[in-house]
C-alpha cells in the first residue's frame, strides 16, 4: 500500500514536470540519457556488450552453438533471443519463468535483428537440413531504470558486431567472422501529458499512458514497431514518433555502432 502511494506521488511529480516543459535530470523531451556501450567484455561468449542508458544497465551475451535447423528453413541458421528480468535488477522483478514483460522484451529485440536481416542466416548453414549455427542472444538486465528495450536492442546488435563463429570448438574450418548486414536500432518514446518523451526513465514509464518503440535500419526504413501501455495514440502522434524514432536511431547508430 505504501508503495502504491509513493508510485502515485512519483507519477504526479513527473507529470507536473512535463506540463512545465521539463524532465527529471534536466533533459529535453527529445533527448536520450547518457549512453555507453562496452563491447566484447565476456570471455565465454562469442559476442557481448554492456549498454548503459543513464542508470539502466543491460548485458547482452551471444553464444553460437551447433544444432539442427528448423524443418521449414533447412538451409538457414537459427536465432534464439531470450531476456531474463532477474530479480537483481529491479524490486519489481520476480524469480520464475519468463512473464509477459520479459517475453515481449525478447520478442521485440528479436524482431529488430530478424526483420532487418542484419544476420545473413544462410551463411550460418553448414549442412542443409542437418547442421546449422544457432545464435543465442541472451539479454541479462542488471539495473532497470526504464527503457529496457532500447538498451537491450542496442546491446544485441553491438554484441553481434564482433561475433566469432567457434569453428575450432567443433573441429570445423571456415570464416570465423560474420559481417552484419544492417544495424537496426530501437527508439522508444512515451506519451506523458500529451507530450512525446524520448527514452523514458522508470518514473516516466510509470507516468506514461503509452509507449511506442520504433526500430529502424541504416537506410531509414522500418523493421519493427511495438506499442505498449494502456493508453491510445492518434495517427499524427504515431507518425511523429516514427519520424523521431528514425532520426534518433540514425544518431545512435553513428555514435555507437560505427565499425560497420
Amino acid at each position: 500500500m505504501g508503495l502504491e502511494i509513493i508510485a502515485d506521488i512519483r507519477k504526479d511529480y513527473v507529470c507536473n514536470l512535463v506540463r512545465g516543459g521539463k524532465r527529471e535530470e534536466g533533459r529535453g523531451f527529445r533527448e536520450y540519457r547518457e549512453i555507453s556501450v562496452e563491447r566484447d567484455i565476456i570471455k565465454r561468449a562469442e559476442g557481448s556488450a554492456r549498454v548503459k542508458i543513464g542508470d539502466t544497465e543491460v548485458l547482452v551475451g551471444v553464444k553460437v552453438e551447433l544444432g539442427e535447423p528448423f524443418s521449414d528453413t533447412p538451409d538457414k541458421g537459427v536465432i534464439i533471443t531470450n531476456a531474463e528480468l532477474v530479480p537483481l535488477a529491479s524490486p519489481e522483478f520476480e524469480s520464475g519463468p519468463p512473464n509477459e514483460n520479459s517475453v515481449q522484451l525478447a520478442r521485440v529485440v528479436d524482431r529488430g535483428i530478424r526483420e532487418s536481416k542484419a544476420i545473413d542466416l544462410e551463411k550460418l548453414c553448414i549442412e542443409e537440413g542437418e547442421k546449422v549455427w544457432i545464435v543465442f542472444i541472451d539479454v541479462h538486465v542488471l539495473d532497470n531504470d526504464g527503457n529496457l528495450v532500447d538498451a537491450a536492442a542496442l546491446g544485441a546488435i553491438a554484441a553481434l558486431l564482433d561475433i566469432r563463429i567457434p569453428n575450432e570448438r567443433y573441429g570445423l574450418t571456415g570464416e570465423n567472422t560474420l559481417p552484419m548486414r544492417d544495424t537496426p536500432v530501437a527508439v522508444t518514446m512515451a506519451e506523458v501529458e500529451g507530450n512525446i518523451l524520448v527514452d523514458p526513465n522508470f518514473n516516466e514509464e510509470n507516468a506514461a499512458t503509452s509507449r511506442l518503440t520504433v526500430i529502424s535500419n541504416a537506410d531509414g526504413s522500418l523493421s519493427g514497431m511495438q506499442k505498449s501501455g494502456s493508453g491510445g495514440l492518434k495517427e499524427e502522434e504515431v507518425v511523429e514518433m516514427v519520424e523521431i524514432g528514425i532520426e534518433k536511431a540514425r544518431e545512435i547508430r553513428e555514435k555507437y555502432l560505427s565499425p560497420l
Partner: protein
Amino acid sequence: MKEGTERKLIIDGKRLDGRGFEELRPIKIEIGVLKRADGSCYLEVGDNKVIAAVYGPREMHPRHAQDAKMAVIKYRYNMAPFSVDDRKRPGPDRRSVEISKVSREAFDPVIMKEYYPKMAIEVYVEMLQSDAGTRTAGINAASVALADAGIPMTDLVSSIAVGKIDGEVVLDLTGVEDNNGEADMPIAMIARTNTITALQMDGHLTKEEFKRGLKLAMGACHQIYELQRAALIERYSKSEGREEKKRD
C-alpha cells in the same frame, strides 16, 4: 516475413484470392453463441475461425493480484492444436503470451475498469482455424463479446492488419501472403475517435509505406466497426424477448 518473394502474390493487379489491394476478406459475426459465458462471439474472417468469451466482472483470483482501485483485465489468446498446419502443442507459448498482452492493452482505454475495483474481467479467445490475422480477428470478436457481456465500455475496439506483398501495401493479409510477403502491421483502433490502441509492425516498410498503410488500416477499422455495430444491433433487436424472460 520470409525473404523469398519469388512467389508472385499479385497477378494482373489482383491478389491470389481475387481481392483488390484495399479489400477486406469477408467477415461473419455471430453473437451469444455460448451458454455458460457471460458474453460470446463467433467470428470468421476469410479462413480464420475464432470464438471469444467474456466472464465477469467477477472476483479476481489470486487475491494478491487484485487492484483496489479498478478491475483487472485478463486476456488469453489461445490457438487450438488443430488450428494450424503443424499441430500446436497445447498451452501458452511466447507468441501467444505477447499477443495476449498487446490485445489486452488494446482494450485498456475503453473498458471502464474503475467501476469494478478488486474484480476481474476475463476475455478468452480461441483460434479454431487460422489463416493470418488471428490476433486482429480475436480483438474484433472480443470486442463484441465484451459488449454482449454488458461490460461498460466507452466504445468498441476494431482491428485489422495491413502488409506489404510484391512491393505493394495491401489490406488484411492471408496466410500465403503473410508467409511470402515483406511486412505485416496489425493495429487496433477506437473507430469513433480514431484512437490507436494497438500497433505492431514487423518486416520492411519505408516511412512512406508505413504512413500509407496506417491510413489504409484505420479506414478498414471503420468498416469493421460498422459490421460489429450491425451485428450487435441485430442481436439486440432479436433478443429483446429473451432479455425480458431473463429479467423475470
